[in-house]
C-alpha cells in the first residue's frame, strides 16, 4: 500500500510531463495547465496522507523499488525514505508547487508554448520529489541533476532571446561546478563507509565504524561546495540574479522556494556527519554570513523588481546557511519554510505587477499601483513585513532564532547577520514604496491598462500571504512543535535556549533594527518621494553596488577568458598538428600509391618482362632456394 502510494506521489508529475510534452499541443490552450496542476495537486494529497501517517506513528517509511548497481562490497538501490524531514519538505514543495501551477495557468495563458512550460514544471516537481525522497546520496544526486536541468530549460524558456539563453547556460554551468564537488563528496563518503544510504551510515557511526577524520572533512567540504552551487552562495551565486530571465512563476517556484533550498536539505539530511566535522560547519557559517551581507548590499541599489527579490533570496539563503553552520538545523528548516511562503508570495506579486504593466520590470517606471491593484498590494506588503522581521509575523520568529543561535556561536557573525537584516528591511520597503506609492511614472497607455489580475493569480497570492503571516506558529520560542517533530531526524538535540534576559535583548535589537530600516525607507521614498536614479547617474559606492561589485566581470576575466585561451590554443595549435599528422599519413599513402601506379603503364612488353621474371623467381624459389 505504501509502495503504491509512494509511486503515485513520485510518478504523477512525471506522467503529467510526458502527456504535456507529447500531446500538449493537441490538448488546446488551457488543458495543459489544468492537467499539470492536477498532477501536482495529486502529489500534494498523497504527501498529506503520508504526513498524517508519520505524525501518528513517528516511524519513517522505507520503500525499495529494486537494486541499481552492485560492486564488490558496495550496493545502491532505488530506495526511498519518507521520514519526518522529507515529508515536511515534500509538503511545502508540492503545496507551493500546486499554487504556482494554478498561478501559471493565468500568467502563461498567452504563450504559444504553454504545454511545454507545464511539462517542464511537472518534470521539475518530479525531480525535486526524487531529490527529497531518496534514501541514499545517489538518488538525491539524480534529483539534484534533474532540477538543474529543469532550471536550465525553464530559465531559457523564451529561447528566442540570446540573453536568456546565456543566463540559462550560466545557471547550468555554475550548478555543474558545484555538482563536481558534490560528486567528489559522494565518492569519498562511499569509500569511507562502503555505502551511501543515510540510515546505514548513521547505524555504522553509532556502532563505531572507523574512518579517517581528515578524509571525512574533505568529503563534507566538497558536499558543501555542491550546496553552494545549488543554493547560490559565494562564490557560485551569480547565476541566480541572471536566472530572473525566466518567467516569474519559474523564479517563484525554483529560485525562491524549492530548488535553492536543496542545498540546505542535503546538509540537514546529513547533519549527523556534519556534526563530526566542526571545522566545515565553521566554514559554512562564515560563508553564509558573508553571502547574506554582500547580497543585501547589492540589493540596496537595484532597480529591477525581480533582481531585488533575487538578491534578497541569496541573502536569506545566506542566513539559512549561517544557522546550519551554528549547528541549528531545525532553525534553518524553519526559515526555509517561512522564506518559501513569503518569497513565493513576493515573486508572484511582482509577477502580477509585471503582468499588469505588460512586461515592465523597472521600478522607476512604476508607482501608485496601490490604488489600482489592491489584492496584490496587500499581499505584497504583508510578505514584506514578514521578511523584514516585524514581530508576530512568521519571518520574525525564524529570523530571530537564527540571530540568537548565531550570537551563541560567535558575536561577530551575529553582528554581520543583524546588519544584513536591517538592510533587508530597508530595501524591501524601498521596493514597496517606489512600486506601489506616490504617482504612476509610466506611460499614459500603460496607465490606461492598469487593472487587478484575475482570480487564478490572486488566490495563490492570498493563500501564501496568509501562510506568511500566520506560519510562525509551527515554531514559537519556548515551545517549538517543529523541533519536537524533527527530533528523530537530528543527531544532536536542538539547542534549547531558555528565554532569558539575553534573548529578549537580542530580540529587541532585531526588532529595533527592522523598524529603523523601514523608517529610513519611509522617509526617503514615501515622504520625500525620491526615485532611484537612472543607470548613468550612479556614483561612487552606489555605482560599485549597482554593478554587483563587478564580480561577473572578475569571473569573466579570471576564469572565462583563460578557458577560452586554452580552447583556442587547442584549436589552433594542437588540432592543426594532429590533423596535419593524420592528413600527412593520408598523403603518404597517396604518394606511395601514385608511385605504385606507374607499374601499370599499359605497355604489353613491360608486362611480359615482369611475367618472365616472375616465372624465374618462382622456379628459383621452388627448386633452388632450399
Amino acid at each position, binding site marked *: 500500500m505504501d509502495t503504491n502510494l509512494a509511486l503515485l506521489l513520485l510518478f504523477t508529475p512525471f506522467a503529467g510531463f510526458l502527456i504535456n510534452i507529447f500531446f500538449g499541443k493537441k490538448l488546446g490552450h488551457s488543458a495543459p495547465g489544468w492537467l499539470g496542476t492536477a498532477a501536482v495537486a495529486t502529489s500534494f494529497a498523497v504527501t498529506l496522507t503520508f504526513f498524517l501517517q508519520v505524525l501518528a506513528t513517528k516511524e519513517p517509511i522505507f520503500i525499495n523499488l529494486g537494486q541499481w548497481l552492485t560492486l564488490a562490497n558496495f550496493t545502491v538501490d532505488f530506495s526511498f525514505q519518507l521520514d519526518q524531514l522529507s515529508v515536511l519538505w515534500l509538503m511545502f514543495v508540492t503545496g507551493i508547487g500546486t499554487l504556482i501551477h494554478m498561478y501559471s495557468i493565468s500568467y502563461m495563458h498567452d504563450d504559444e508554448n504553454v504545454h511545454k512550460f507545464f511539462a517542464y514544471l511537472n518534470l521539475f516537481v518530479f525531480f525535486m520529489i526524487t531529490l527529497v525522497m531518496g534514501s541514499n546520496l545517489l538518488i538525491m544526486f539524480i534529483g539534484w541533476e534533474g532540477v538543474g536541468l529543469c532550471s536550465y530549460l525553464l530559465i531559457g524558456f523564451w529561447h528566442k532571446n540570446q540573453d536568456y539563453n546565456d543566463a540559462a547556460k550560466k545557471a547550468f554551468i555554475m550548478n555543474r561546478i558545484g555538482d563536481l564537488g558534490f560528486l567528489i563528496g559522494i565518492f569519498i563518503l562511499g569509500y569511507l563507509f562502503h555505502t551511501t544510504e543515510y540510515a546505514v551510515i548513521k547505524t555504522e557511526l553509532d556502532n563505531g565504524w572507523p574512518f579517517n577524520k581528515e578524509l571525512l572533512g574533505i568529503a563534507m567540504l566538497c558536499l558543501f561546495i555542491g550546496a553552494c552551487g545549488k543554493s547560490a552562495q559565494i562564490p557560485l551565486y551569480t547565476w541566480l540574479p541572471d536566472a530572473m530571465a525566466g518567467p516569474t512563476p519559474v523564479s517563484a517556484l525554483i529560485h525562491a522556494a524549492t530548488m535553492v533550498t536543496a542545498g540546505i536539505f542535503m546538509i540537514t539530511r546529513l547533519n549527523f556527519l556534519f556534526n563530526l566535522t566542526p571545522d566545515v560547519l565553521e566554514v559554512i557559517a562564515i560563508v553564509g554570513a558573508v553571502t547574506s551581507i554582500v547580497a543585501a548590499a547589492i540589493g540596496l541599489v537595484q532597480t529591477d523588481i525581480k533582481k531585488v527579490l533575487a538578491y534578497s533570496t541569496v541573502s536569506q539563503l545566506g542566513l539559512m546557511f549561517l544557522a546550519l553552520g551554528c549547528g541549528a538545523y531545525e532553525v534553518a528548516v524553519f526559515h526555509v519554510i517561512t522564506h518559501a511562503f513569503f518569497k513565493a508570495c513576493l515573486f508572484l506579486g511582482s509577477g502580477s505587477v509585471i503582468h499588469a504593466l505588460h512586461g515592465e520590470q523597472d521600478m522607476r517606471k512604476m508607482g501608485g499601483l496601490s490604488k489600482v491593484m489592491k489584492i496584490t498590494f496587500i499581499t505584497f506588503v504583508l510578505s514584506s513585513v514578514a521578511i523584514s522581521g516585524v514581530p508576530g509575523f512568521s519571518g520574525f520568529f525564524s529570523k530571530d532564532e537564527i540571530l540568537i543561535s548565531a550570537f551563541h556561536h560567535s558575536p561577530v557573525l551575529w553582528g554581520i547577520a543583524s546588519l544584513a537584516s536591517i538592510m533587508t528591511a530597508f530595501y524591501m520597503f524601498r521596493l514597496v514604496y517606489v512600486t506601489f506609492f506616490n504617482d504612476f511614472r509610466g506611460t499614459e497607455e500603460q496607465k490606461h491598462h492598469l487593472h487587478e489580475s484575475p482570480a487564478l493569480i490572486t488566490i495563490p497570492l492570498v493563500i501564501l500571504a496568509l501562510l506568511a503571516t500566520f506560519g510562525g506558529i509551527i515554531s514559537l520560542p519556548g515551545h517549538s512543535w517543529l523541533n519536537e517533530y524533527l527530533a528523530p531526524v537530528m543527531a544532536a538535540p536542538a539547542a534549547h535556549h531558555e528565554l532569558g534576559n539575553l534573548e529578549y535583548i537580542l530580540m529587541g535589537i532585531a526588532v529595533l533594527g527592522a523598524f529603523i530600516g523601514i523608517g529610513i525607507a519611509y522617509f526617503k521614498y514615501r515622504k520625500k518621494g525620491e526615485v532611484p536614479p537612472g543607470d548613468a547617474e550612479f556614483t561612487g559606492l552606489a555605482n560599485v553596488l549597482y554593478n554587483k561589485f563587478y564580480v561577473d566581470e572578475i569571473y569573466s576575466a579570471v576564469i572565462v577568458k583563460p578557458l577560452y585561451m586554452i580552447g583556442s590554443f587547442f584549436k589552433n595549435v594542437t588540432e592543426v598538428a594532429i590533423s596535419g599528422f593524420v592528413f600527412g599519413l593520408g598523403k603518404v599513402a597517396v604518394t606511395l600509391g601514385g608511385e605504385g601506379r606507374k607499374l601499370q603503364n599499359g605497355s604489353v612488353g613491360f608486362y611480359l*618482362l615482369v611475367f618472365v621474371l616472375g616465372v624465374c623467381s618462382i622456379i628459383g624459389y621452388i627448386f*633452388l632456394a632450399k
Partner: protein
Amino acid sequence: MLTLFYILSAITLGTAFLTILSKNPIHSAIYLVLCFFSIAGHYLMFNAQFLAMVHVIVYSGAIMILMLFTIMLMNLNKEDEKNKNLLSRLAAAGAFGLLGLIFLATFIKSQPVISKYEVSGEDYQSIKILGQVLLHDYMVPFEFASILLLVSMIGAVLLSKKEHINS
C-alpha cells in the same frame, strides 16, 4: 648419330635465332619453317615416324601458311618496324640469360636419376600402338580436343568479322 644430332640442333637453334633477329617478317616465317623441319628430323631420329609426319603437316603446312597469309594481309613485308629502345632490348637479353641460368641450374641441381637405358625391344610407338593408346586410354581428351578445334574455328570467324556501321 651424334654428329647428326649436332647438325640438326645447330640448324634448329640457328634458324630460331634468325627468326627473331631478322627484320623482314617473311624471312622470319621462312626461317621458322626450316626450324620446324629440323625438329621433324629430330623426331625421325627418335623413330617416331607418325609424329614427324603430323608435325610437318600441322606446323609447317597449316600454321605457317596461316601466318604467311596474315603477314601478306597486313602488308608487312616492308622493313618499317622500329626497334624497341635499348633498355628494353638489354632487359630482354638479361631475361633470356636469367631464364636459361635458372633452368640449367635447376636441372643440374636436381640431378635427375639417369639410369642405364635399357631397351626392351617392345614396340611402343608404332602407329598401331599409338592409335590404340590414343583411342583407348585417352578417349575423353581426344573428344575434347575436337570440341576445342570447333570452338576455335567459330571464334576465329567471329573475331575477324567486319563490323557493319549502322547508317
